[in-house]
C-alpha cells in the first residue's frame, strides 16, 4: 500500500543546512512536497541539488534543520525511509559489467521483491529496453541507461521517487520520453522529486524550486514563477547578433541583455526607453533587419532575474 491517500506530506524540509568543510552546500532549505506531486529542483551544477537529495534519501546527515519523508524523520527513521523510497543518483550507478536483466534482478532482490511481482509498474519503461536484456549495462546508450536506472529505482514500488538529474547528458528525444514516463508514474500516485539543470523542463513539473548557491530562490508553480516576473522583457533580433549584444548593453534604459537562442532578451526600463528609440539607436550603429518584440518571460529569464538580485 502507498501512503498517497493519507494527509502526510511526502516531504517536509525545515531549515536544512549542510556544509562541506565550511563551504556551505545548503543554506536554510525549507519546503514541502505534496503526495502525488512532481516537484522539480532546478538549478545549475554545484547549486546543492545532489546534497539535498542525499539528505532526503538518508545518505547524508544535515548539519542543522529537520527533514522527513512520508512522515518519517530522515535521521531516526532512516531504515523505514530506505524501504519506501526509490532513488536514482546523479551519475549512472548501475553495474556496468552486469547485463540489463541482472542489474534489475539485483535491485529487485535488494528490496525483497522480484521482477515478476512488480513488472506491471515498470512495464512501459522496461519493455523498451527488454530486447537488450542480455546486453551489459555499460554498453547501453545514455538514454537507455537512464531507462534502466529508472526501472531499477522503481522495481520495489516506492511511494516516492528521488531522481537526481535524470536527463543530464541525454539527448532531447530521450529527455522527452523520460518526462512522459514521469507523468505516467505520477498518474499511478507516485510522488516524484526531480532535479535538473535544464530550465526548459520546469514547465513539466507541478511545482518547482529554483536553487542557486545552496539556496532556494523561489518555490512556486511554473506559472506562478513566470507571473512573478514583473520587468518589461523584449526580444531583439538583427542581422549581426554577435555585435548586437554589445550595442544593446550600451543603450540607456537597457537593464540586462542576454543571448537567448535566435533572439537577445533584454529587460528595459520602459519609462525612458521605447521600441522606437531602441530601433533608431541600433540603426545608428549600423544594424539592420531589426525586430523588437515584447515577450512573456520564460523560467530561464526568471532564474536570471532572481539570480541578479
Amino acid at each position, binding site marked *: 500500500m502507498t501512503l498517497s491517500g493519507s494527509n502526510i506530506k511526502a516531504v517536509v524540509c525545515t531549515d536544512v543546512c549542510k556544509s562541506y568543510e565550511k563551504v556551505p552546500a545548503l543554506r536554510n532549505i525549507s519546503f514541502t512536497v505534496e503526495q502525488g506531486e512532481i516537484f522539480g529542483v532546478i538549478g*545549475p*551544477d*554545484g547549486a546543492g541539488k545532489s546534497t539535498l537529495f542525499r539528505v532526503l534519501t538518508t545518505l547524508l546527515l544535515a548539519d542543522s534543520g529537520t527533514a522527513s519523508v512520508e512522515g518519517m524523520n530522515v535521521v531516526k527513521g532512516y531504515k523505514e525511509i530506505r524501504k519506501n523510497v526509490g532513488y536514482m543518483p546523479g551519475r549512472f550507478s548501475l553495474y556496468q559489467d552486469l547485463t540489463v536483466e541482472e542489474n534489475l534482478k539485483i535491485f529487485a532482490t535488494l528490496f525483497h521483491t522480484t521482477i515478476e511481482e512488480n513488472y506491471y509498474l515498470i512495464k512501459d519503461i522496461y519493455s523498451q529496453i527488454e530486447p537488450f536484456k542480455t546486453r551489459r549495462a555499460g554498453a547501453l546508450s*545514455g538514454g*537507455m541507461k537512464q531507462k534502466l536506472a529508472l526501472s531499477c529505482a522503481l522495481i520495489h514500488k516506492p511511494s516516492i521517487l528521488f531522481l537526481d538529474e535524470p536527463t543530464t547528458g*541525454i*539527448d532531447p528525444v530521450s529527455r522527452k520520453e523520460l518526462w512522459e514516463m514521469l507523468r505516467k508514474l505520477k498518474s499511478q500516485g507516485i510522488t516524484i522529486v526531480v532535479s535538473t*539543470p535544464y530550465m526548459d523542463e520546469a514547465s513539466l513539473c507541478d511545482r518547482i524550486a529554483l536553487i542557486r548557491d545552496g539556496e532556494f530562490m523561489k518555490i512556486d508553480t511554473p506559472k506562478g514563477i513566470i507571473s512573478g516576473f514583473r520587468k518589461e522583457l523584449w526580444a531583439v533580433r538583427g542581422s549581426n547578433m554577435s555585435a548586437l549584444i554589445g550595442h544593446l548593453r550600451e543603450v540607456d534604459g537597457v537593464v540586462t541583455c542576454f543571448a537567448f537562442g*535566435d533572439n537577445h532578451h533584454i529587460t528595459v526600463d520602459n519609462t525612458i526607453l521605447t521600441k522606437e528609440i531602441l530601433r533608431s539607436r541600433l540603426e545608428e550603429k549600423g544594424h539592420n533587419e531589426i525586430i523588437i518584440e515584447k515577450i512573456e518571460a520564460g523560467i*530561464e529569464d526568471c532564474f536570471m532575474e532572481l539570480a541578479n538580485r
Partner: protein
Amino acid sequence: MKTALWNSPTDRYMNVITVENLTKKFGSFTAVDNISFEVGKGEIFGFLGANGAGKTTAMRMLCGLLKPTSGKGIVAGYDIRSESENVKASIGYMSQKFALYEDLKVWENIRLYAGIYGVPEKDIAPKTDELLKELGFEGEKETLVKSLPLGWRQKLAFSVSIFHEPKVVFLDEPTGGVDPVTRRQFWEMIYKASDKGITVFVTTHYMDEAEYCNRVSIMVDGRIDALDSPANLKKEFNATSMDEVFRKLARKSKNNEL
C-alpha cells in the same frame, strides 16, 4: 556582418573543415556513414545528434584521433588521415568531461597547455595576464581550479583551448550543467572567438543553444540528415524551435534507442 554571410553556405571565402564521404566502421557497425560537409573560417557550426548517433566518432576523426575507414577530411589545411599530427597542432579542444587539471592552479593550467601547443615562451606570461583580465579572473591566478565554480572553470577551459590561436576549436558539450547566466557569457565568448576568425565546432544538448550557431547539422544513425541555418531548418521542418526540428528528425532513426 560576417555572421550573415554564413547563412548562405555558398558564399564563403575559405573552408577550415572539408569533409567528403567520411565513414567509420567498427566491425559491422557503421558509426559514421558517408558524411560530407564544409565549415568556413570563423563560422559557428553546431553539431547535433541523439546519443549514439555518431557525433563523438565523427569529432574524433576530425581531431585526428581516429582514422577514418574511408572518405576524406581536411581540417585547417591538413589531411586528417595522413597529417593528423599537424591537425592536432592547429586545433583547440575542450570537453565537458575533461577540461582542466583540477589539482593545478589557474596559471599552471594555462602554462601547461601553452607548453603543449608550443606557444613561444616569451608570449606566455603577457598572454596569460591578458586572458585572465578578459575573464575578470585577475584575482584567481593562484587559485586551484577545483575551487573555482563550474561555470568559471568552463569559461577558463574555453579560453585555454584557444590560447594558442588555433584555426578551429572543437567544443564537446561545453555548457552542460552550467548556470544560465554563465552559459550566456560562455556563448558571448564563442561569438568573440568567431569574430577573431576562429572556427567553432560545437556539440550541445541545449536546443536553444543550437540557435546561436550560424549553421547546424543534425546527425541521425551516422548520417547527417539536416544541415542549414537554424532559421532555414525551422522553415523546412515547419517547426517553431530547434527542439522540435530535432525531435522530428530523430524520430526517423531506426535504431533510435541503441
